[in-house]
């Protein structure tokens, strides 16, 4: 059985991707506040929803990355 090694670099990369997702979720929240003319304090009070949206974005991103990885893997094997 092979050991799976998660490098520090990999962890940093995932954290950066999640941070990107969180910033995007914050952007969505900002858009919603402007769009529905609600209060700016919602940036803080709905932080839990923003976090949930960020997790959703991260999951979508992960799915896309797996898809890209599979495609690349498949094409490289065929080329070989």
């Amino acid at each position, binding site marked *: 059985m092979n050991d799976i090694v998660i490098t520090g670099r990999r962890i940093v990369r995932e954290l950066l991707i999640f941070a990107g997702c969180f910033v995007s979720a914050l952007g*969505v929240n900002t*858009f*919603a506040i402007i769009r529905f003319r*609600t209060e700016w304090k*919602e940036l803080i*009070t*709905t932080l839990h*929803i923003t976090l949930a949206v960020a997790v959703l974005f991260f999951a979508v991103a992960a799915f896309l990355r797996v898809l890209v990885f599979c495609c690349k893997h498949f094409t490289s094997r065929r080329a070989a």
Partner: protein
Amino acid sequence: MESNSSTVSTSELSGREHRREFLKRLAVVASSSALLADLPWWTPLRAAPVGDSPADRVRLGLIGVGTRGNLHLDNLLRTPGVEISTLCDDYPPHLDAGLAKVKGAKGFADYRQMLEMPGLDGVLIATPLFLHARMCLDAFAAGKHVFCEKSLAYSIEECQAIADAHRGSGKVFQIGHQRLFSPVFLRALEYVRDGRIGQITQIRAYWHRNGNWRRPVPNPGPDPSPFPSLERRLNWRLYLDYSRGLMTELASHHMQVANWFLGAHPVSCAGYGSINYWKDGREVYDNVNLVYRYANGTQVVYDSLISNRYYGCEIQIMGPKGTIEGEVGRLYAENPPPAPGIVQLINGIERGFFDVVPISGPSWVPELKKDTKGSLLVHGAISDDGSMISMAAFANAIRSDKPIPGMMEQACRAGVCVLMGQASMEQQREIAWPEGFRI
């Protein structure tokens, strides 16, 4: 009125600790209400805590130990400073069951003998409606304080007689409308007074059950009591000689709340009733529908039936800014604060994905009932609907030997109201508030 933290809970306490804790909580409830000026019957609850001296003890007798009487008995047994010295019931199984709960209490079959007992401070009357007036009058004549179950009396004349007898007697009178002491209804009143729903423009109340309203009769047959049969004695609510049915037994509660919140009695009422389902020999209506008109133009719409319970029991106090539902204890704002922007955005996306796009549909959809949960009037569990606190208020009022202000007014308004409704349905015409009725 403070919220749940100050409501009276008795379940987890016992003995001396129970009494002290109970009094402490009661004092908090009574003194924290910003509405005390509107709630004079809460005044006795502000009295000093009951001590253990014999002078602090209030000796009470209970007339009628049936279903409601039993509940009062249980509450009295948990009320500080109360001694239940006598019980009275002319139905031996009820009396025996009551006496088994109270050690040392004397039992009577005739309430008049009970009233002659020395040392008895007051009586609680929990008997069939047609007996209320004569028992109240006899009790006042015997110099006793009186707690009478709702509805006040069988006829408007009897209501007047009780009010007249009470006036000048100097005795405490209390009516069994426990919502007067309910923390939920006190909070509702507070919200109405501070304008949260705006002016009350309509009150709608209903009480729906699905059952024949009959009690099982163990041995039907001749009965030595004023009733011609045991069936009539136990099911007195179904016969017009003893009760006015849904009006006096159920509607009186909600009509009391309506009068209380509107601060007035109705000027007239009109309605219809019939027996359209339970055609089993009963004499009282099994469905009633009424409208009460008040001087300020507000109407109270009331209906009750016992062949469908989907809507249950509720009183809805409506105004331009919101609706209060007293039984579920919720406030529904007409224009609730909007959901956070991100929630609105997510809901919008969700609707775009999952909602059916109507090609054509009913144009009244926006008019259908709003599916909002509202907000709770009082948070947390409430272990008392007011029945327990009302016992403490009665005992405290007797101890201070001062009549409870406003109580007879509440009793008469509600009692007369339901009798007006009954008369309107029987005579199929509008009935006006009795002119010259004096409280």
